[in-house]
């Protein structure tokens, strides 16, 4: 990475940004700082991507560095591996998380193993970004949350921002990371006006693998990430009315996982709930529950609860989605359950 002397965050200029704007800004900063950064995917050039996250980047940085690729996720992923291995820092986009699967061979079999397979000769410092999550009444494959498949694949990192500041800082850290990083961008948060916040306009990073305590509490720990942080906070707020104090942990990264923050919290509260929009069985929640019982079993006052979507495809039946996709009142039920154990 090009050596740049940065001002400390506290002294930087800021600008109000949505999560979408913060992600765009992060890539603009990365393209400006490092000539090795290139960006491609379907529709990312002239259109700026289906969610306009790469808007303006081709105009500013040129077609050689920001371009539309042929329509093939396998090609986008596989070429990113090759280009990264020989010195580039590709930041590529899939149109939706649900469209990742044609690239899965390159994820499961290759990007995760390239360095290991060459015993360190070839590293693949690349970032793959894509929109995820539902609740918007979109078509099939436009609402998936496929993080568990990646968490179960050794050798890759996963970031999952819940707000503009984190999104920009995590993405910049991801682009600098020498390991491949997958960036899950919750569609519902992209332009959520409630999340708009002052974000530094220049360079800064949010370290990978460091969770954020979104709300401090003493009775119940709620672990969430991405689009589930808001309902977790809402449930915690509702619980506070009944004098129940919930701590909400926003993981920010799934891999590396900030186990210290989770365990410290559970040792304090004795009760844990994991929330994710992805389906239940074999999910991130299962892994976190296993880790808590390994490392904090004797602190537990109640079985760990999971609040997740049902074990079926994200529903295209728009009128019914709210029965499955976790909402604050589903989390509230779980709070009652862990308290009554």
């Amino acid at each position, binding site marked *: 990475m090009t050596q740049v002397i940065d001002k400390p965050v506290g002294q930087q200029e800021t600008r109000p940004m949505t999560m979408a704007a913060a992600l765009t800004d992060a890539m603009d900063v990365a393209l400006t700082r490092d000539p090795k950064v290139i960006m491609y995917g379907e529709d990312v*050039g002239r259109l700026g991507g289906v969610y306009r996250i790469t808007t303006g980047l081709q105009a500013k940085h040129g077609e050689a560095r920001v371009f539309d690729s042929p329509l093939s996720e396998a090609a986008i992923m596989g070429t990113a591996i090759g280009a990264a291995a020989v010195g580039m820092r590709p930041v590529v986009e899939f149109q939706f998380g649900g469209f990742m699967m044609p690239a899965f061979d390159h994820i499961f079999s290759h990007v995760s193993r390239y360095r290991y397979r060459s015993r360190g000769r070839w590293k693949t410092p690349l970032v793959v970004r894509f929109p995820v999550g539902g609740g918007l009444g979109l078509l099939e494959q436009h609402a998936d949350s496929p993080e568990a498949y990646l968490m179960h694949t050794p050798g890759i990192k996963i970031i999952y921002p819940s707000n503009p500041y984190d999104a920009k800082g995590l993405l910049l850290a991801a682009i600098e990371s020498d390991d491949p990083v997958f960036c899950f961008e919750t569609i519902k948060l992209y332009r959520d006006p409630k999340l708009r916040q002052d974000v530094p306009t220049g360079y800064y990073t949010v370290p990978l693998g460091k969770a954020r305590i979104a709300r401090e509490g003493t009775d119940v720990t709620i672990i969430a990430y991405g689009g589930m942080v808001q309902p977790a906070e809402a449930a915690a707020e509702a619980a506070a009315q009944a004098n129940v104090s919930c701590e909400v942990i926003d993981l920010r990264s799934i891999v590396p996982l900030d186990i210290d923050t989770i365990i410290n919290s559970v040792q304090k509260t004795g009760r844990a709930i994991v929330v994710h929009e992805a389906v239940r069985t074999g999910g991130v929640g299962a892994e976190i529950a296993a880790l808590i019982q390994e490392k904090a079993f004797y602190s537990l006052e109640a079985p760990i609860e999971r609040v997740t979507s049902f074990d079926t495809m994200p529903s295209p*039946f728009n009128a019914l989605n709210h029965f499955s996709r976790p909402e604050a009142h589903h989390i509230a039920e779980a709070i009652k359950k862990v308290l009554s154990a």
Partner: protein
Amino acid sequence: MSESSDIFAGSTLQTADLKPFQILAPDGRPVREELIPDLEIVEELYRRMARARYLDDKFMVLYKSQRLGNYAQFGGQEASQVASAFVLKAKDYVCPMYRNTAAMITHGWPIEKAILYWRGHPDGWRIPDDLNIMPIIISIPGQIVHAAGVALGIQAQNLGAVALSYIGEGGTSQGDFHAGVNFAAARKAPAVFIIENNGWAISVPRKVQSGVDYLMRRAEGYGIPGYLVDGNDALAVYTTAKKAVEDARVGNGPSIIEQLTYRVRPHTTGDDPKAYRTEDETNEWIANRDPIKRLKLFLEYEKRWNDDREVAMQAEIETEFTAALEAADHAPAPDPMALLDYTMIEPTWQLEEQRATLQARVAAEGGAA
């Protein structure tokens, strides 16, 4: 040198100056008079294309009044879809992608079901039992590989049917397009693969997808016929599809048909093409190369069509659509159990547990209401 010439003898790749097959010029005048099908068929094609256009127009109106979900328009591609699906028999299979509503209603999908599908209603997702239509595929190009498999199943059971699948020009860049077509070709399975080259994959123009001039040239690499057709000429589409389907049916194996057309409408209701292409380009296609107008002009030259017949036909189309819309509007609210139904034939205990949770949530919502 003579040796290497021998090696490449017979290869036509990139050497032949291909012209799209046409029976009618854009002004409706025949350029291949001898190939005009029976005029009864031409009239029926015109009616069905007009019916499809009416649906596409109405769906946009329904979307704007929030009576339809996000929808992928096909308007401008009526010849490409209707005139190809029209050649199928009831026992033949359509393996559709999301832009194939016109092909599907041509193969018998009730308009009421189409409305419910695009409303995200489970009753629309259920394909009627008497229709050989496979599920609509959103993640392209799954449908191409499934079609190769359907063709394999047809062949193994001697069903005498054909699998017809569609893909856009963008989708042909996916590796599985190759995998599916190659498999069908290697097994001489009865499939027909139609590339609807409408020029645009959302904002990405055709030339970004591949360095080759015409995508049907890939057929040579599979050892199967490849056809290049004016996709807005319903008679050329019909004639080519009929040949490809009947060749497949009698055991001659699959074909690739590239139909040159244009996506005059947005990618979906959520897209605005002004962000990436000129309106002049689109308007030129609408004004001079509209497939329905072309067929109507031809029928008028042949004295097979007049204003009275047009008015009567449009009234019929409107009556049919209005009845379908009314039926869709009266469909019962979706049963919440549809969320879990059909996940597994033998549900796991986890699914049974989640069914109980779902029932409790539905009861709680009912109680609160």
